[in-house]
């Protein structure tokens, strides 16, 4: 099968082109380094089927950075290269084009961002550019699909045109090409450009960041709560409850199937959170408690990503982050981790060194609860207001700072300096925002809901087998004396390995006080990431490092939990 590679600078639209050509949804965001893994898909080429590979973006070929290495190795295996070029940054992009041409593979250029180029007053003479490069050049606007069919139609014209030059002359050759094909008309600064300026200058950028953070937080809360109280609770109470009540009457409380599907009745009633049946708690937790927050969070995050705010935030916090031994751009994996720790771990690949990636990933899996867990925590502690939620968040934040300082002094090593392109602000293209949101929500439903059901089923089985009761008795000394929790909390800790949302939900029927709830929620966040996240961590960092990390997590969880138990 023919292999076609999509190559180009970071953030030029390769992934949008990939989606267009293969029909496969991939994450697209306005910052360099969104795609960190080789993504493969199939596309039709006449009667043939070809493989298309979305290669992580690079500025040059060569061995300097991991992304460059991947791209350089990948290139050898491709049959044709679609070089996606940002028409608004011709010179910098053509630098890579020149290297690709000299590598001797057939190349076709997709001159993307054609719309932005026009808005910026940049005109490019396509005929001349084709002539100079010796390969086909097709203007495209990937998000709307313009030019994509021409790109496919001309794919077989891809050739190995080459421009001979000495390394010394590289930039003068490039400068010559750009001068020949491009004319720029000056124009006024737009509103977005001014806003972009203001969000980087510290005097205005810091207040803007705080406002943006508060607005984002408020939006997530309002949308999440709104969906729960206006849509999902009524759905469950008005539509699902009658069905389930009927089923309950047929099955008869106390029987095996009743326990498994509906769970136990609380005061003679079905209780969505406490009954622990597959069709009650198993559906209510993921769909009515967590899904609304997942939706709200990813809607807001998607807008922030597509506007192009994240790298600016990275620059603003870089000074503080370096004091903590971390790179400013680590805020990106931390924020993504707030949705789900797995994409957070993957996004650490935006960082240059392995040590940096490991630190960021471990800090995130210890201190950053995912949205599924947060949603249930908010449901449990929210009624206590600030008194319930503030100690939890403050503890996790302080722990984050303390652990990063600990890493800095115990595992010394250089933190690479900030060096990143800052993309222009773009108006989010709403169909693309909706598509990305749908993709993430769908992923949650597909991948998280089965695990929640598994978790709820497991709780029942473990109770029937007496495992939770026995473990509770064993661990009672630690649980009660150190953490001040009743032995039954061991069930939540056990299920927490699998799903945090179910685990936090299991605290509900234990009749805990606010202090115990806080301790339990902190411990559940810290002691271990969920199994799915741990699997990804293992794949990324190997068994040895992760064994140490797991030990650290347990110690920290007991330490922090014990401390909270003493001081709260």
């Amino acid at each position, binding site marked *: 099968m023919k292999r076609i590679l999509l190559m180009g600078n970071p953030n030029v639209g390769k992934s949008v082109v990939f989606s267009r050509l293969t029909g496969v949804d991939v994450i697209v965001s306005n910052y360099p380094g969104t795609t960190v893994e080789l993504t493969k898909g199939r596309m039709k080429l006449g009667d043939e089927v070809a493989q298309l590979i979305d290669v992580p973006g690079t*500025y*040059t070929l*060569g061995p*300097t*950075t991991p992304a460059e290495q991947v791209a350089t190795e990948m290139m050898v295996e491709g049959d044709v290269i679609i070089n996606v070029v940002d028409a*608004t*940054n011709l*010179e*910098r992009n053509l*630098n890579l084009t020149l290297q690709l041409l000299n590598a001797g593979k057939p190349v076709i250029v997709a001159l993307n961002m054609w719309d932005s180029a026009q808005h*910026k007053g*940049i005109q490019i003479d396509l005929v001349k550019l084709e002539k100079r490069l010796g390969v086909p050049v097709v203007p495209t606007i990937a998000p709307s699909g313009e030019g994509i069919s021409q790109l496919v139609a001309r794919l077989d014209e891809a050739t190995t045109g080459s421009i001979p030059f000495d390394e010394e002359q590289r*930039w003068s050759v490039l400068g010559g090409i750009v001068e020949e094909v491009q004319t720029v008309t000056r124009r006024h600064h737009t509103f977005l450009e001014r806003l*972009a*300026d203001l969000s*980087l*200058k*510290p005097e205005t*950028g810091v207040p803007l960041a705080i406002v943006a953070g508060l607005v984002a937080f408020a939006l997530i809360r309002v949308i999440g709560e709104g969906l729960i109280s206006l849509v999902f609770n009524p759905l469950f109470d008005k539509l699902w409850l009658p069905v389930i009540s009927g089923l309950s009457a047929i099955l008869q409380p106390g029987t095996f199937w009743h326990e498994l599907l509906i769970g136990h009745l609380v005061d003679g009633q079905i209780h969505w959170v406490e009954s622990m049946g597959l069709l009650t708690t198993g559906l209510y937790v993921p769909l009515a408690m967590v899904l609304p927050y997942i939706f709200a969070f990813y809607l807001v995050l998607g807008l922030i990503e597509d506007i192009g705010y994240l*790298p600016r935030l*990275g*620059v*603003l916090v*870089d*000074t503080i982050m*370096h004091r903590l031994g971390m790179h*400013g751009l680590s805020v990106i994996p931390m924020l993504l981790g707030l949705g789900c720790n797995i994409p957070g771990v993957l996004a650490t690949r935006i960082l240059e060194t392995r040590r940096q990636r490991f630190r960021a990933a471990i800090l995130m899996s210890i201190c950053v609860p995912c949205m599924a867990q947060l949603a249930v925590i908010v449901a449990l502690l929210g009624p206590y207001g600030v008194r319930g939620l503030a100690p939890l968040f403050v503890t996790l934040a302080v722990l984050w700072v303390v652990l990063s300082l600990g890493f800095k002094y115990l595992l010394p090593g250089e933190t690479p*300096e*900030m*060096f*990143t*392109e*800052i*993309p*222009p602000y773009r108006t989010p293209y709403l169909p693309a925002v909706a598509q990305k949101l749908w993709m993430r929500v769908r992923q949650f439903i597909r991948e998280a809901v089965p695990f929640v059901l598994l978790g709820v089923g497991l709780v029942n089985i473990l109770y029937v087998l007496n495992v939770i009761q026995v473990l509770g008795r064993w661990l009672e000394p630690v649980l009660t004396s150190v953490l001040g929790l009743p032995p039954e909390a061991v069930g939540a800790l056990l299920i927490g390995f699998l799903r945090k949302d179910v685990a936090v939900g299991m605290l509900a029927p234990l009749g805990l006080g606010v202090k115990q709830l806080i301790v339990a929620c902190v411990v559940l966040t810290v002691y271990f990431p969920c199994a799915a996240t741990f699997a990804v961590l293992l794949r990324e960092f190997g068994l040895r490092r992760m064994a140490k990390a797991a030990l650290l997590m347990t110690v920290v969880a007991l330490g922090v939990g014990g401390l909270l138990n003493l001081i709260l």
Partner: protein
Amino acid sequence: MIVSLAEMAPGQTGIVVSLEGGHGMMRRIAAMGIRRGAAVTKTSSQPFRGPVSVQVGNTEVALGFGLARRVMVEVPG
């Protein structure tokens, strides 16, 4: 007058005259458009030796203070 990117004032424009650093890093900086002869405009700098940002052509780049100190720029005055 020749100053480094770190010393330039935000809003100021100058012409890059030299990159003084290791080969690998300087090659990456050059690939972003910051190289001898290029006109750069400083757009921001963070306090306490934080990163600075510059505009080269249509690209905006953020560099750590240490890197910025090694990019020398000829500015008017």
